[in-house]
């Protein structure tokens, strides 16, 4: 009986040495590329500085939109700043100018929409611009989201690069009376300072192209 048991044990171990017990599994993982980031001007919000009255060397500043002053409003900025000391409906008046080169009158800050991947971190780069004897130094802020209800900020923008986070679906939950964030988006409000190196002609529109660069 003992001999018989030894034989059985030896046979039991045999397959271990033969390496015949194996499994092979082709497996797959997933990934998705993000959508390209784009930026466009929000209709009706092309930046215009009215009432310039400049001689060479004069400047005029379109007040910089921020959460504390000259605020564009939560609705326009697709932002929910509930809890922050901001007028959610926007500052009144909005689009004021100041400087020796300005006369009275309301101007229009520029508002631009970034559209990219939900929650993505993007760099916004502003640069000085000039054309036709007028230089322009942009400044403003961009909606910066917190991936949660309310509590959004407006990140101050100046010449250089600023990083913000685009909205997520969690940002779309907002308190009543606030703006409505949209996943994957942010908005930029810009003012800035124009300076002339020439005497400007009366009743003439001058155009200064400038770039906003947005990258992931």
């Amino acid at each position, binding site marked *: 009986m003992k001999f018989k048991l030894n034989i059985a044990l030896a046979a039991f171990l045999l397959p271990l040495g033969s*390496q015949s*017990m194996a*499994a092979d599994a082709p497996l797959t993982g997933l990934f998705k590329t993000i959508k390209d980031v784009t930026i466009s001007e929000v209709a009706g919000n092309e930046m215009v500085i009215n009432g310039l009255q400049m001689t060479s060397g004069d400047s005029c500043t379109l007040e910089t939109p921020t959460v504390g002053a000259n605020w564009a409003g939560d609705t326009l900025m697709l932002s929910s700043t509930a809890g922050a000391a901001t007028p959610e409906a926007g500052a009144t008046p909005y689009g004021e100018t100041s400087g020796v080169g300005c006369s009275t009158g309301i101007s229009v800050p520029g508002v631009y929409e970034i559209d990219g991947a939900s929650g993505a971190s993007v760099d916004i780069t502003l640069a000085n611009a000039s054309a036709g004897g007028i230089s322009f130094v942009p400044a403003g802020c961009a909606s910066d989201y917190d991936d949660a209800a309310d509590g959004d900020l407006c990140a101050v923008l100046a010449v250089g690069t600023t990083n913000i986070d685009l909205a997520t679906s969690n940002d779309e939950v907002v308190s009543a009376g606030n703006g409505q964030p949209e996943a994957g988006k942010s908005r930029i409000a810009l003012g800035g300072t124009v300076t002339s190196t020439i005497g400007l002609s009366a009743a003439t529109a001058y155009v200064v192209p400038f770039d906003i660069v947005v990258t992931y």
Partner: protein
Amino acid sequence: MQPKKTKLALACGALCLGVSGASIADTFNLTVNTIGDVTILQEVQMDFGENITTDASGSCAMNIATPPAATLLTDTVLVFTGTNYGDLTGANCVGVLGTPGVYSITGEAGLDVTITLTDEVQAGGDYTFTPAGSAVIYDGGALGDTIGSLAVNTPTASVTLADVTGGDLGGVIDGETRFAVGGTIAVGATGLTSDTDYIATFNVNVIY
């Protein structure tokens, strides 16, 4: 006299058998029990998420160096800490966290298996995927499990399956081990298409 003669014949018969070398034979059964096949099962599918840029010649890597104990079913929380588990790093990442793949291997409790993680040619576009894996090596006792870092395209031997009877704890299933898979997506010179789903394929082979 007749009964006495019969006794002699029987005695002679027995004697003749003992001295002639003749044999007696019988048949016995040998039972052969093979061990169970080793199997591989996907518990969680690896997913980098919508976190990859289309930029050419960059990469994005997902960390799986120290998976959490609760995910891989081990009692050794001081080793399986979950630190940086699923973190995404690299020029082609825009998010910070992906979902590592989790797979279970089932076989005979306490035995060693050899795992071979293999990369594959990706058919979906201009990218490669190099998997990285971390498996639980059970110690057959409490709190002594270790991490087996799985080499790519080279067998990793001596990955010990759990032996609950021997003392492995942590919710592990007897005869099982688990491993997590992340790795690196490297985008080629052409780049990828935006807003597009891709598949990263790899292969796992397990043998006793």
